[in-house]
C-alpha cells in the first residue's frame, strides 16, 4: 500500500517534470500569483478568466495549469491582505486581522515569510494526506451506485449551502437556484429543451465560464465600483526582511501545525467553504492562546494558523473532487467543470483510467509550491508595486479580459451577453445578502444530481425508501438530516435571542 503510493508518486513526478507540463504548471502559478495580488481579483476570477485557454490544451497540462493558478492566487491574496489590509479573496479576510497590524509595526516582511513557510508546510501535509487517502477512498467509492452518489451529492450541496458565511437558508436558496441554472438546456434523457425560452444558444447549457465570470467578476465590479479605494502601500520590502528569526519560527510552529490539521479536517468534509475554515483556525488559535489580547494587534499566530489551514484545505479538497467527482467548494466546481469539458469524468475510475492526470497533478502540487517559494522571494518587490495598481484602471482592464475570454470559448457574443445577465443577477443577490458561491456548486452538480436521482428511482421502481435501505446512502442521508436539524436549532435560538434583545431595548424610532 505504502510502497504502491510511493511508486505512483514517482510516476507522477515523471509526468509533472516533463518540460511541457512543467512549463504550463509554472505559467499557471505565475499568472495565479499575479492575479491574486491584484486588488479585488481572487482565485475564482483568476481561474474562470483563464479557463477558455485550457479548452484547446491537452488535459494533463490544462489541469496542472488550473491547479497552479488556484494555489498561486492564494499566495498572492495573502500578500494583499498582509500589506494592504485588502482581502482580495474572502478566506484571507482573517489574515488581515493580524497581518496588517504587523505591517504597520514594520514586520510585514516577517508576516509574509511566515505565511510562505506555513503555506508550504500545510500544502506538503495536505498532499501527503491526498497521496494516501485517495486510493482508500476509491476502494469505497467503487461500491457506490446511483443512490449513494445522489445521497453524497445531496450532503455536499447541503454542506456547501449551510456551512459558508451568512444565512444557511439563503445558501440553500442559492444552491437551488444553481441547480435550476444547471437544468437549462437539452435534457439528456428525453431530448426536451428546458428553460431555453426559444434561445437556441441555451440548448447547450449555460456556459460555465460565462456564469462564473458574471457572478465572480462583473457582479463584484458592480458592487465595488467607486466603493473600493486602495490606499497605496508604502511598505518597502526586500527578501532579507522576509526571513523570520528563530524565535519567531518557534512561536509560529505550533499554530502552523494546528492550522494545518483544521484545514485537513475541513477539506475532507465536502461542502465546507474555505472562508469558514480560516475563521475557525483563527478562532481556535485565539481561544487556546495564553495571551488572547494580542490577537488583532499583530500576533504572529493569527497569521500562521489561518494561512496554513487554507493551504492544507486546498490540497485535501482535491480528494473528493477527483476521486468522487464531488467538488468541495466553488473553486473545485470550476476545476471539475474544466475536467468535464476535457471529456474526463471524475470519479473512482479516474485514478485508474487517467493515472497520468491524477498522479501528475499530485506531483505538480509539490513542484508548484516549490516554484512559488522560489519565485516569491525575489519577486516580492514587484508584487508590492502591483498592489498599487488603482482600482479605476484595474476593473476596466479586467472587464476586457472577461469579455474577450468568454467570447473565445465558443466564438459567440451570446456568451458575453450571458456574462452581463449573470453579473446583474449576482449583484442583486449580493445586495440582498445572498451568498453566490453555492450557485456555481449547484450548476456544476445539477445534471449529475438529477441523473443519479432518476437512475436510482428507476432501479428501485419509484420507491423513495431506496435512499434509506442502502447502508452507505443511509449514512449520508442521516448526516444531511443532522446538518439540517442542527442548523434549525441554531437558527431558532439566534432568532429568539434577537427578538428578546429587541424587546428588552427601548423602542427607537
Amino acid at each position, binding site marked *: 500500500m505504502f510502497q504502491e503510493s510511493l511508486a505512483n508518486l514517482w510516476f507522477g513526478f515523471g509526468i509533472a517534470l516533463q518540460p511541457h507540463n512543467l512549463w504550463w504548471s509554472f505559467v499557471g502559478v505565475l499568472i495565479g500569483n499575479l492575479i491574486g495580488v491584484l486588488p479585488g481579483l481572487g482565485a475564482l476570477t483568476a481561474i474562470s478568466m483563464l479557463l477558455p485557454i485550457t479548452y484547446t490544451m491537452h488535459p494533463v497540462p490544462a489541469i496542472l495549469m488550473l491547479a497552479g493558478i488556484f494555489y498561486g492566487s492564494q499566495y498572492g491574496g495573502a500578500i494583499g491582505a498582509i500589506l494592504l489590509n485588502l482581502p482580495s479573496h474572502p478566506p484571507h479576510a482573517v489574515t488581515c486581522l493580524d497581518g496588517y497590524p504587523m505591517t504597520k509595526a514594520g514586520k510585514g516582511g516577517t508576516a509574509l515569510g511566515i505565511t510562505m513557510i506555513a503555506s508550504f508546510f500545510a500544502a506538503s501535509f495536505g498532499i501527503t494526506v491526498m497521496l494516501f487517502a485517495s486510493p482508500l477512498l476509491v476502494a469505497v467509492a467503487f461500491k457506490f451506485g446511483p443512490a449513494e452518489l445522489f445521497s453524497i451529492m445531496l450532503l455536499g450541496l447541503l454542506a456547501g449551502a449551510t456551512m459558508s458565511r451568512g444565512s444557511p*437558508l439563503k445558501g440553500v436558496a442559492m444552491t*437551488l437556484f444553481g441547480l435550476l441554472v444547471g437544468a437549462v438546456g437539452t435534457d439528456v434523457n428525453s431530448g426536451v429543451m*428546458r428553460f431555453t425560452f426559444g434561445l437556441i444558444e441555451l440548448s447547450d447549457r449555460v456556459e460555465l465560464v460565462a456564469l462564473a465570470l458574471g457572478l465572480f467578476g462583473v457582479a463584484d465590479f458592480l458592487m465595488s465600483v*467607486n466603493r473600493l479605494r486602495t490606499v497605496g502601500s508604502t511598505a518597502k520590502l526586500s527578501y532579507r526582511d522576509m526571513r523570520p528569526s528563530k524565535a519567531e519560527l518557534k512561536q509560529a510552529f505550533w499554530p502552523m501545525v494546528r492550522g494545518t490539521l483544521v484545514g485537513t479536517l475541513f477539506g475532507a468534509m465536502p461542502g465546507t467553504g474555505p472562508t469558514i475554515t480560516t475563521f475557525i483556525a483563527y478562532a481556535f488559535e485565539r481561544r487556546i492562546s495564553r495571551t488572547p489580547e494580542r490577537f488583532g494587534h499583530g500576533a504572529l499566530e493569527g497569521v500562521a494558523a489561518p494561512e496554513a489551514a487554507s493551504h492544507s484545505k486546498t490540497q485535501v479538497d482535491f480528494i473528493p473532487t477527483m476521486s468522487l467527482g464531488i467538488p468541495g467548494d466553488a473553486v473545485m466546481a470550476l476545476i471539475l467543470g474544466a475536467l468535464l469539458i476535457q471529456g474526463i469524468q471524475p470519479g473512482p475510475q479516474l485514478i485508474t483510467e487517467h493515472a497520468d492526470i491524477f498522479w501528475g497533478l499530485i506531483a505538480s502540487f509539490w513542484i508548484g509550491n516549490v516554484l512559488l517559494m522560489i519565485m516569491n522571494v525575489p519577486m516580492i518587490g514587484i508584487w508590492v508595486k502591483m498592489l498599487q495598481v488603482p482600482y479605476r484602471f484595474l476593473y476596466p482592464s479586467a472587464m476586457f479580459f472577461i469579455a*474577450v475570454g468568454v467570447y*473565445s470559448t465558443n466564438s459567440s457574443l451570446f456568451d458575453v451577453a450571458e*456574462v452581463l445577465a449573470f453579473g446583474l443577477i449576482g449583484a442583486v443577490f449580493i445586495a440582498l445578502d445572498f451568498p453566490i458561491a453555492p450557485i456555481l456548486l449547484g450548476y456544476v452538480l445539477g445534471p449529475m444530481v438529477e441523473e443519479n*436521482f432518476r437512475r436510482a428511482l428507476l432501479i428501485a421502481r419509484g420507491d423513495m425508501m431506496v435512499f434509506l435501505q442502502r447502508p452507505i446512502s443511509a449514512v449520508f442521508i442521516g448526516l444531511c438530516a443532522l446538518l439540517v436539524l442542527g442548523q434549525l436549532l441554531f437558527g431558532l435560538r439566534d*432568532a429568539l435571542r434577537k*427578538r428578546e434583545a429587541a424587546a428588552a431595548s427601548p423602542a427607537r424610532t
Partner: protein
Amino acid sequence: MSVRNPLTSLPKDYLGGALMVLIGVGAIVEGTRYSFGSLHRMGPGFFPVALGTLLALVGVVIGVIGWLEHAPGAASERKTLPPEWRGWACIVGSLIAFVVLGHYGGLVPATAALVFISALGDRQNSVKSSLLLTAVMLVICVVVFWWALQMNFPLFRWG
C-alpha cells in the same frame, strides 16, 4: 422618518424571500410545460418542478424569519450603501456596447467601447485617463489575442 422609499425601507429579507418565491413559481410554471412522469419514470419536468417548489418554500421561510427577526421597534442595524448609478450604468453599458459593436463593427471598436465606457464609471477617471487606458488595452488586444492567440474575431467588420 417621514418619507421613505417604500422599496428600500422594506427589510432585505422580505425582498429576498419574495424574489426566491418568484423564481420558484416561475420554474414551476415553465416546468409544468414539460412532461412530469412518475417517480418510477421521471419526465424532464419532474426535477425542475421539484426544485421550483423547494425554492418557493425556502423563499417563504426566509421572509417569515425576516419578519421574526425584524421585531417592531427594532431599528435595522444594517447600513445600506448609497446607490452608485454612474458606475452601474457604465459597467452594464460597456458590456452591451461590446456585444453590439462586436456584432456590427468587429473586435477593435468593441474593445475600445468596452474599456472606455467602463473606465468612465469610476469617478476618479477623466476622459483623458480613460482614453489612455483604452489605447493600452487595444494594443494588448490586437497583439495578444488577435495576433498571438489567433482569436476567431475579425478586427473590423461591416454590418
